[in-house]
């Protein structure tokens, strides 16, 4: 041990100097002051979730650019501060803290997996800052500092089940990734099945990122269900649908209804493996609506003609507009004022009319069932006719009374 002291001196000198260095770089920029408003974008730009989340970030950047072109918010330009959540939940919490405390952003748009939202939730509640979360999720949550612009269960999963019931499918098999969304979703599905005379033949989970599905597909085909409800996430879907196809199961004999597969994922799975299968969302690239035609065109013009738009991208794109509208109505970007102003705001979005429910901070959204087409897009075959009121705790469903408080 000849050298330790000099080095040890180095350790903290460097770290203290380095840390205070970054400190001087960030002039205390009052979110509402100056001619700019900073907003945070926090998605995974690396790791397993990057493939999906980068597209949402792109859609949000597009919205910011469009709003700036139209004159900004309260006469000020929006400046995005982009951070990488790295598909790692603690990193989401750290970067959220950084955006709030150091960059002093007016609001944050971010997250995809429920795990990342659960990790960020205490941070936003602690510092009383706003998060706009753009992905469908499992419900049973309503944080006063989160706005949920994706679907909650009664706007996606329950309409999906209604659809299967309408089709006369009574024997269902549940397949999901092993984390909070699929487990909670399946809890809800089982309660629904019990109340509606459906039979659950089996319930199987695989770890996130799992790619060996021959055993599971065997189990499913041997149980002979009339339909499969699929809550697998990410890469696993590729292996699952390939195995399913090679086992001879078809969309006609045994449809697999998925709630995490949108246009972007269809490309990864391979259209051949999934064409004909049903999915449940609130928006498709093919949704017929002038606002959507403009959105799809703007997105393709900015990011390339081969790009597709999907439900979470649209929900992220909407989030920026909805927040901007609330800020305009409030006359400030101050969090409590924006929250108060947000309730009741209604905008024509690519998916149709979206209204913020002030009480739950969820959106009124139209549920849509679609079928994957051979060209990779999704064609709507059923919709709820009008936007459905969000009901994250499923209070309006008698069969779900035991779920909210486990």
């Amino acid at each position, binding site marked *: *041990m*000849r*050298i*330790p*002291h*000099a*080095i*040890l*001196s*180095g*350790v*903290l*000198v*460097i*770290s*203290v100097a*380095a*840390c*205070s260095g*970054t*400190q001087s770089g960030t002039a205390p920029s009052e979110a509402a002051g100056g001619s700019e408003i900073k907003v945070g974008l926090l998605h995974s*730009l*690396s790791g397993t979730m990057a493939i999906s989340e980068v597209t949402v970030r792109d859609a949000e950047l597009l919205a910011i650019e469009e709003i700036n072109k139209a004159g900004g918010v309260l006469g000020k330009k929006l400046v995005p501060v*982009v*951070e*990488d959540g*790295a598909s*790692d*939940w*603690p990193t989401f*919490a*750290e*970067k959220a*803290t*950084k955006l709030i*405390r*150091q960059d002093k952003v007016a609001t944050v748009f971010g997250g995809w997996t*429920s*795990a990342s939202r*659960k*990790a960020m*939730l*205490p*941070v936003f509640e*602690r*510092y009383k800052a706003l998060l706009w979360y753009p992905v469908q999720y*499992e419900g*049973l949550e309503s944080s006063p500092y989160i706005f949920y612009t994706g679907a909650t269960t009664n706007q996606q999963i329950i309409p999906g089940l209604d659809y299967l019931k309408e089709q006369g499918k009574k024997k269902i098999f549940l397949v999901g990734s*092993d*984390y*909070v969304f699929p*487990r*909670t979703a399946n*809890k809800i599905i089982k309660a629904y099945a019990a109340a509606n005379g459906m039979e659950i033949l089996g319930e199987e989970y695989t*770890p*996130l990122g799992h790619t060996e599905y021959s055993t599971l597909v065997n189990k499913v085909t041997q149980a002979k269900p009339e339909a499969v409800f699929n809550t697998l996430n990410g890469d696993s879907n590729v292996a699952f649908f390939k195995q399913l196809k090679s086992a001879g199961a078809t969309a006609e004999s045994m449809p697999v209804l998925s709630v995490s597969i949108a246009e972007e994922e269809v490309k990864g799975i391979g259209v051949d493996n999934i064409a004909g299968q049903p999915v449940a969302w609130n928006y498709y690239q093919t949704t017929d609506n002038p606002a959507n035609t403009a959105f799809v065109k703007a997105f393709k013009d900015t990011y390339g003609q081969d790009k597709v738009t999907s439900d979470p991208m649209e929900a992220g794109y909407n989030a920026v507009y909805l927040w901007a509208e609330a800020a305009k109505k409030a006359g400030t970007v101050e969090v409590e004022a924006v929250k108060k102003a947000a309730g009741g705001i209604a905008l024509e979005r690519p998916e149709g009319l979206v209204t913020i429910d002030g009480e739950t901070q969820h959106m009124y959204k139209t549920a849509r069932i679609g079928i994957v087409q051979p060209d990779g897009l999704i064609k709507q075959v059923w919709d709820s006719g009008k936007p459905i009121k969000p009901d994250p705790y499923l209070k309006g469903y008698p069969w779900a009374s035991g779920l909210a*408080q*486990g």
Partner: protein
Amino acid sequence: MIRKHLPFATIAVLALVAAPLLLEPFRLSLLAKYLCYAIVALGIGLAWGQGGMLTLGQGVFFGLGGYSMAMYLKLAEGGGLPDFMVWSGVEELPALWTPFANPVFALGMAVLGPVAIAVVLGTLVFRQRVRGAYFAILTQALAAAMVILLVGQQGLTGGTNGMTNFFDLFGADLAADSTQRGLYLVVAGVLGVLYLATRQLVNSRFGRLLVAVRDGEDRVRFLGYNPATVKTVTFAASAGMAGLAGALFVPVVGIISPALLGVVPSLELVVAVAVGGRHALAGAVLGAVLMGYAKTAFSEQFADGWLYLQGALFILVMTLAPKGIAGILGRWRSARAT
């Protein structure tokens, strides 16, 4: 004598006085996080640098410490079942959780749990003369198994989410800046004490024996010592440090999840020790703080491509200075002395 202790004293003053005064609360808690990793790195420096045991699974011990602490914090909130159990469909508190309501038990388990596992593992493995790459692979497999176990037991551990949303620590509001500052001082203090203790250990007769085991295990055995005991004790000490670091990490960062203790974070720490210089304890500490800081700084500046920079830094240091930064500084110092 004064000259000898001057550098350490300077650091202590910088860490305990200057840093809390100069840094913003957010940066200070980040520094506290790096120092938690530095405690783990110190253990790796002892086991690998001094003892030649390349342990790729320190995340396991870090995780045991972290989860023990998190279980206590979750139960300390009161108000019935922890939130994740409610949404995982668990109806009553599992028996495994009950004793963790006691902070002394939880803290004890955070350190003694890892020590016990390391002793059992060490006794089994070192007596069989498993070493080198085989030992490294074994510890790495342990880290992978631990993650699968934690993810699979969602009702018991929170699954992939892990545990978060902690409010208070021994009655203090965890969100308050003053609590975070206090926590930082505790972490820095623990690191300082452990560093001094480890240095004492390395300079003692035991330390010489440890280095001897590293460089010529069979010769030590012929001299009548039992290398398995020496290695087991060292491995257990490094495991205990990792466990304690995990327990400190949870209140500082406010979350524990399997992503923090799998194969990748365990490897990252070994890489940090290599960058700092594994043959000097201070090198290990320096490496952990530097890599932690680099990760934050790179990812803030270049959100899109920071992983490449982190990799480049590692390759650069390893090719230009195989002995790490400590090696460079040591060479520079001895050159100046002559």
